[in-house]
C-alpha cells in the first residue's frame, strides 16, 4: 500500500544512523514484516525515555500489523461477506416485487410484508390483477434498490420502478393490457380472485366518486399515515426495539450491534420525510393522534358497510386504507393508541379483516429466493410456497421459467 511504503521510507530516514545496530530480521521475506524499531537492541533504542513517547507511532505500527494480518486471510472466505451493492437479477418475464420480509410472529401467511409501504404496493398489485412474483428481502439488502429503500419492482423488461409515480403509471398501463384483463377474468372464474371488478385509478370512476377518492386519499396521507409512522418509529415509549424486531435481519454476516445502526438509519429517513411533509417541525404527538382519530372517524363514516369504498370494486384507496389499518391492527407495541382508535370503529376492523381474508390469507404467491453468487439464500422459506399461482396462467412464455424456479427451490 502507498501508506505502508511512505511509512517505511520515513522509518528508513530516521534510523539511518542506527542501521548498523539493527538485526537483519526485516530482510527475511518468510517471516511477517515487523517494525525494525521493535528489534532495535542498541542502548539508545532502549532509552526511549529520552524521546517523548509517541503514541501516534505506536498506533501506526499497530495499524500496519493489522492490515498485514488481514492480507493473510484466504481469499475464498471473503465471499462470506455480503457483496457491496447487490443488484437484483430478473430471471423471467414476470414483474418481480422486492419487499421487506414479513416478521409478525403470529402471521401464517409467508409473503404479506409487515412494512406498511410494502403492503400498499402488494395490495395494489393484488387488486390490479397483474401477475407478479415476489422476493422477500432483509433490511440490510435494501441497497439493492436505486433509492436505497424497499419496496421496488422490476418490470418484465428489466426496468426498476422504485418511485411512487412510476408505479402508478406502470400499473395503469399494464393493467389495461389484454393479457392482464384475460388473466383477471379467468382468475375470477376459477375463484382464485374474489372479484373481477377493479378500479385502478380514481380516473376510472365517474365525477363525484372520483372527487371523494381524491379527498379521502388526501385524508389518509395527511392525517393517518404520519400518525402511523410516528407511532412506529418516533414514539418514545416504543423506542427502537419494536422496529428492530421487524427490520433487523435474522441471519446476516454483520454483528448484531450493526443492526441498531441500520434501524436507526431507517428511522432517520422516516423523520426526514415527516419533517418535509410538515414543512419543518413535526407537530407534537397529541396533535398527530387527535388528527388520526378524526381521520379514522371520517373513514368509518364514509365506508359504511360496504366491502370497499366504491361499491364492489377494490381501488387504490382501499389498498392504502387497508395497508394502514392492517399495520395498525397487527402491531403489538407498548404504545398502541392507534390500535384503540381503530378498534373503536367496528366497520373498519371488519373491512380490514375481510380484505385480508379475501386477498391475502389463502392466496398463493410465487416467492423467488434471492440469488447471491449463484447460491440460493433462504431455501427453507421458499419451500413453503406453492408453484401454482396466477403467474403461471398469466403469461405462457413465463410459465416454464416459473416451473423451473419452483422445482429448483422445492
Amino acid at each position, binding site marked *: 500500500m502507498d501508506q505502508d511504503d511512505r511509512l517505511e521510507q520515513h522509518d528508513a530516514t530516521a534510523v539511518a544512523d542506527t542501521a548498523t545496530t539493527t538485526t537483519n530480521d526485516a530482510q527475511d521475506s518468510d517471516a511477517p514484516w515487523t517494525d525494525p524499531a521493535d528489534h532495535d537492541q542498541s542502548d539508545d533504542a532502549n532509552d526511549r525515555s*529520552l524521546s517523548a513517547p509517541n503514541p501516534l507511532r505506536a498506533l501506526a505500527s499497530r495499524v500496519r500489523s493489522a492490515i498485514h494480518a488481514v492480507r493473510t486471510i484466504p481469499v475464498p472466505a471473503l465471499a462470506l461477506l455480503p457483496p457491496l451493492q447487490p443488484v437484483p437479477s430478473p430471471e423471467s418475464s414476470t414483474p418481480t416485487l422486492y419487499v421487506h420480509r414479513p416478521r409478525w410472529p403470529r402471521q401464517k401467511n409467508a409473503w404479506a410484508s409487515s412494512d406498511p409501504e410494502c403492503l400498499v404496493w402488494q395490495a395494489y398489485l393484488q387488486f390490479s390483477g397483474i401477475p407478479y412474483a415476489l422476493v422477500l428481502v432483509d433490511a440490510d439488502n435494501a441497497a439493492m434498490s436505486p433509492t436505497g429503500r424497499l419496496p421496488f419492482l422490476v418490470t418484465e423488461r428489466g426496468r426498476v420502478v422504485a418511485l411512487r409515480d412510476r408505479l402508478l403509471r406502470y400499473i395503469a398501463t399494464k393493467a389495461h393490457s389484454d393479457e392482464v384483463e384475460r388473466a383477471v377474468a379467468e382468475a375470477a372464474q376459477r375463484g382464485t380472485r374474489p372479484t373481477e371488478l377493479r378500479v385502478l385509478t380514481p380516473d376510472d370512476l365517474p365525477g363525484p366518486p372520483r372527487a371523494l377518492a381524491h379527498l379521502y386519499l388526501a385524508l389518509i396521507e*395527511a392525517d393517518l399515515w404520519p400518525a402511523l409512522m410516528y407511532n412506529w418509529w418516533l414514539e418514545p415509549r416504543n423506542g427502537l426495539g419494536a422496529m428492530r424486531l421487524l427490520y433487523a435481519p435474522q441471519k446476516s454476516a454483520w454483528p448484531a450491534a450493526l443492526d441498531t445502526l441500520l434501524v436507526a438509519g431507517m428511522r432517520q429517513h422516516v423523520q426526514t420525510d415527516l419533517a418535509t411533509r410538515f414543512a419543518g417541525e413535526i407537530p407534537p404527538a397529541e396533535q398527530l393522534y387527535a388528527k388520526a382519530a378524526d381521520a379514522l372517524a371520517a373513514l368509518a363514516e364514509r365506508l359504511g358497510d360496504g366491502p370497499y369504498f366504491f361499491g364492489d370494486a377494490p381501488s387504490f384507496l382501499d389498498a392504502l386504507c387497508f395497508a394502514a389499518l392492517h399495520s395498525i391492527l397487527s402491531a403489538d407495541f407498548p404504545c398502541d393508541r392507534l390500535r384503540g382508535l381503530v378498534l373503536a370503529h367496528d366497520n373498519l376492523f371488519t373491512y380490514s379483516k375481510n380484505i385480508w381474508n379475501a386477498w391475502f390469507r389463502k392466496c398463493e404467491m410465487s416467492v423467488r429466493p434471492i440469488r447471491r453468487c449463484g447460491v440460493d439464500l433462504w431455501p427453507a422459506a421458499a419451500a413453503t410456497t406453492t408453484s401454482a399461482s396466477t403467474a403461471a396462467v398469466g403469461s405462457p412464455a413465463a410459465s416454464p421459467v416459473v416451473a423451473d424456479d419452483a422445482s429448483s427451490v422445492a
Partner: protein
Amino acid sequence: MGLLLYAWGPLAGPSRRSLPTVDADCLAAVTYLRLANAKFELVEHNDPSLSHTGHLPVLHDETALFHGLDAVLARKSDKAAALDAHLTALHKADRAAVEALLRDQLEPVRQYMWYLDARHTATTHSRFKPLLPLIPRWLHLHSARRAVARKFNAAHRTDWLTHVLAGDRKPTVRPPAAPAAPTPSLNMSLRLSPPAQDDACTWSRADVMHVARALYTTIASILGEHEFLAGGDTPSSLDAVMFGALALHYYPEFPDAESAAPAADADADEGKPAPVAPRDDPPTLAYLLSTEFPTLVAYIDRVYDAARIGEIVVAGASQEEVASRAPVPVDEGLMARVRRFARSDAAHAILSVAAGAALLAGYIGVVRAAEERRVASAVEEVRRVQVERRRAVAERRERELVQEEGGLGADGVEDRPVDHDEAEEEEHAAVVTELLEDEDEGDDDK
C-alpha cells in the same frame, strides 16, 4: 374585551378584492368567525412564534388561548353550533378530508406560485414588505421557499395523491435519478442529515398547473350545482375553510402582461360562455380559474359577499394601538420563551452563523494541531540524531582515551571535549536546518 384574533397582516399589492390577511389559515379563521356572526377584533401580528403550533392564527377569548386553525375551528360556542347545524355526520367527515386536501395539496400549489415561480417572487417580496422588516422578511420567505421546494422534490417518495392527480402526464423535469444513492462502502444507507435538497425544485410550472387543474376539477365536482358546500344555501365552516385557501389563489394579481386574465368580458356576455381555449401552461392560478372554472370563481365571490370580508377593519400594529390594547397574553415561562426563540427566524440566523464559526474554528484547530505535530516530530528527529551523535562522540572519546592511556600521557585530554562541544553546536544547527528543510520538501511531495 371580546374575541381577539391575532393573524398576519392584510394583503398588499395588486389584488382583485381586498383581503384582511395574507395567510390561508388566518383567512379561514376570519371567514369562519364572520360567517358565525361572532364579534371579534382582528389584530395584525406578523410573528408566528406567538402560537404554540408555530402557525398563526391565535384566538384569544376571555378564558383561553387557541393556537392554530384547528383549535380555532374546534372551539365550542353557540354560534359555531348554529353555523354547522345543518351538517350531517357525512359532511363532518368530509370536512376533515377537505381540510387535509387543502393543507396538503392546494396550499403547496399556491406556495409554489408565490415562492418558487421566478416571475412572481418579486411580487411576493413586495407583498410582505409592509408586514416585516428586511431581515425577518428575507428569512421567512427563504424558509418558506425551501420548505415548498423540499416538499415537491420529495413528492415521489412521500406522496400518492399528487401523482394520482397528475395522472398520465409525464413530468417535464425528471427528479434526480438516485437522490439517496446508497453509500458504496457499506450496505447501510445511514445518513444523518437530509441530502442536498436546496431551493431548486425539480417540478416545472406546467406540471404544477396540471395538478392544480385536477384539484380544481375535484373541488368543482364536490361543489356540484349547489350554492355552498354541504349542499345547503347557507354557508358553513366547510365553506370558510375552502374560501381561506381558494381566495389566495384567485384574488391576488400579478402585474405581468401575460398574467392578465381575460375576465373583463364575463359581465358583458352572461349568456354565452367565454370562448377562451384552455392553455396548457397558464401563467397564474387566477388565469386558470377564470378561464376554466367559472363556477369556482362564482363560489369564491359568493362566500366573500356572504362573509362581508371587505368590511373588516384590521387593527393595525401602530404604536398607539398596541399601547391601548391589552398586552398580548404571552406565556412568560422559561421553557415557553426558549421554545418561542427556537422557532423564530432570528434563532435560525444565529444558529447558522454559530455553526459556520464553529466549523471554521474546528478546521483551524485541526490544521494547527497537524502543524504542531509535524514540527514536534521534526524536533524529535533532531533530538534523536543529536543524542546519537553525542553517544558516537562519547564512544570515540573513550576509545581514544584508551589509546591515549596506552600511548601518550593524560595531558591533551582536557582540550578536546571543549572543541567537540563547539563543533557539536555548529553541527546541531546545521542538522536542524537540514531536517526542517527536508520536512518541508516531504510535505510538498505529499
